[in-house]
């Protein structure tokens, strides 16, 4: 048995990835290819999707139907389309990847938003024969709004356009221009064929004109560092821990997941919205008390003063406070069946708070082709725009560009209880 290095496994980094594309652009084949090439698929799963039944061994990717490996539910097979996000897991010696595999159909954009919201990087698939489609633009715009740090454009099916460099360059230029308009920082384009495997994990012999990294090299080398710990400290209080047992009669701990920044014992904290101030007495975890904690740890904080704190309150450092306002303006991706309308009332869930909200104004609706800002007083399903809400109680929030956790919210229809909108505060 080869020597296994347990220490090295601690260095493995987590990268959350999302894959989007239009219908039939070869996404399932690409994901199947990544799973096979990184050994993310098990033999019994490969055996189930081999092309020739009766073969007893699978020795190469050519013998299996790659797209079948990520085959969905029977409910989806009936319709021949992917409805919902599937999560796939694969790893290289350096990284573990959680990949949200999203549906391509426009009517399932809500599921694409679900899969993308937590991603650090996105792969946008484009069929080289068809170029940039309306759905490509919609997805790219949503990924831009969601602030996905790295976008990778995978120009797939290059084998079907004779590996033509000009075809690739034309798509690359168009995507570069579209992304520049909305301020996407990191865009990487890669020509590939998921079916033959060229430029996925191996270079192949067909596209020597492309000098960049393969897809897998790109995924393994892109930065996963965030600057969450350098941002102001924010901890939404999820729960108050008051065991009131014989051995812990007066224990009052505030439980939460640190959204950003760091906190130390002795730090002076302000509780929003009350504005009351106290200092950190203890940072409690099951593994022992900490002197310092940082995002995204889940901890319990004990303060030196007995002040009134409840679920939804936000802890932060004095002098590094956020906005608290009865108004909130955000980019909204509308995913409800019924349109968002001016003056309509909803619930907004933000961090650990839930408040009533009314649409006071639709500032504009975005034309996804031109990115023009059109006048509107409603947003229909799958439309994107900027909306101002009036809140029943003030919320403490940051801008989404500064903080993905305290700058995001969901809109809930209080009659159906459904999640109908995704908001990114500007």
């Amino acid at each position, binding site marked *: *048995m080869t020597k*296994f290095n*347990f220490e090295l*496994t601690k260095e*493995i*980094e*987590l990268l959350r990835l999302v894959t989007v594309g239009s219908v039939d652009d070869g996404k399932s084949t690409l994901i199947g290819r990544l799973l096979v090439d990184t*050994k993310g698929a*098990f033999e*019994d*799963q490969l055996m189930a999707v081999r092309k020739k039944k009766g073969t007893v061994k699978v020795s190469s990717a050519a013998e299996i139907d790659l797209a079948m490996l*990520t*085959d*969905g*539910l*029977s*409910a989806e097979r009936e319709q021949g389309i992917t*409805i*919902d*996000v*599937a*999560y796939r*897991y694969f*790893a290289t010696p350096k990284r*573990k990847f959680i990949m949200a595999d999203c549906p391509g159909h426009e009517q399932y954009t*809500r599921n694409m*938003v*679900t899969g993308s*919201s*937590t991603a650090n990087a996105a792969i946008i698939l484009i069929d080289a024969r068809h170029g940039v489609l309306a759905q490509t633009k919609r997805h790219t715009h949503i990924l831009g709004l969601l602030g996905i740090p790295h976008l990778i454009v995978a120009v797939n099916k290059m084998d079907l356009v004779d590996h033509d460099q000009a075809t690739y360059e034309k798509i690359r230029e168009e995507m570069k221009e579209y992304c520049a308009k909305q301020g996407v920082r990191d865009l990487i384009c890669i020509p590939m064929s998921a079916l033959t495997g060229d430029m996925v994990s191996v270079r192949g012999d067909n596209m020597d004109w492309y000098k960049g990294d393969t897809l897998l090299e790109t995924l393994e080398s892109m930065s996963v560092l965030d600057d969450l*710990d350098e941002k102001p400290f924010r901890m939404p209080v*999820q*729960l108050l*821990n*008051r*065991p009131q*047992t014989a051995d*812990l009669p007066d*224990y009052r701990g505030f*439980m*939460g*997941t640190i959204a950003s920044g*760091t906190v130390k014992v002795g730090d002076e904290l302000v509780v929003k919205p009350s504005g009351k101030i106290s200092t950190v007495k203890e940072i*409690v*975890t*099951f*593994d022992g008390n900490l002197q310092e904690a940082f995002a*995204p*740890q*889940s901890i*319990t904080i004990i303060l030196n003063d007995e002040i009134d704190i409840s679920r939804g309150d936000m802890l932060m450092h004095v002098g590094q406070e956020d906005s608290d306002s009865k108004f909130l303006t955000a980019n909204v991706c509308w*995913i409800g069946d019924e349109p968002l309308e001016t003056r309509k009332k909803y619930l907004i869930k933000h961090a*650990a708070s839930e408040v009533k909200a009314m649409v006071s104004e639709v500032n504009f609706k975005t034309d996804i082709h031109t990115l023009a800002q059109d006048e509107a007083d409603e947003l229909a399903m799958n439309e994107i725009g900027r909306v101002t809400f009036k809140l029943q109680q003030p919320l403490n929030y940051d801008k989404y560009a500064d903080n993905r956790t305290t700058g*995001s919210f*969901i809109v*809930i229809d*209080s009659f159906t*209880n459904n*999640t109908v909108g*995704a908001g990114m505060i500007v």
Partner: protein
Amino acid sequence: MSEHKLTQLKALEAESIHIIREVVAEFRNPVMLYSVGKDSSVLVHLARKAFYPAPFPFSLLHVDTGYKFKEMYDFRDAFCEEIGADLIVRKNEDAINKGMNPKEFGVARCCQALKTTGLLDALEEGGYDAAFGGARRDEEHSRAKERVFSMRDEFGQWDPKNQRPELWNIYNGRIHDGESVRVFPISNWTEMDIWSYIREEKIEIVPLYFAKERPMIERGNMLIPYYEENKDQLLEGEVPKMIMSRFRTLGCSPCTGAVRSDATNMDEIVIEAAAARRSERETRIIDHGSNSMEDKKKEGYF
């Protein structure tokens, strides 16, 4: 910078604790499904971490088919006693009294009666509005599509075509009377993560996970554990043999196979999991055949 970085296991742990706390904050009467297996051991460990130093504020519910391995019952009782957990055990007594078993009635019907109906009845009886489960998305293709908060209608059924959008780590726990949610805090963990975490955190698991010489029946490429009292399960020509083996996953004894293995401690198990070329659920008869996990999940199976 580097001193402010979590290992990927610690990042998964923080995410799971966040989810468990959200449920306790938002639901009236949550319960944690406890199946005695390794994923349950991890789930309970996370629940203890989430509320430390207080005990976790919900019960453990074991839907018992009566067909679990003896070692599992012994472990369950000792473990719950040791950590002071409130354990509720429920069985579909009606089906058990009728002699439900996989051999005569078929695996699908047996699972339906003892697991799905048993679970739905127990959830209804307890009036639980949220039930934690230890399912992972890497296990199987219908579980790969599952939300962290998975809505169930009044009949406990899952509608995969119409799942609620789930954005960032903001979970919408609003439900109508009669509806409930199944919550999967370890959705994003892989089998490798589970074993590595059990090793790192020194979490107790059922001894059947460790390799030992055990009496086994070889059937096709399955290893089926042999017990003296189940002699009648032997097919013609089968002779039990002592085989060095262990379980990668634990279910009901008639329907769970073992694998040949020399892994007798956690280090060796992690190394074996890293090298595994076949999926753990291969040894679970329940996943195969026409009645798939997807169908069972729609009916209310966890």
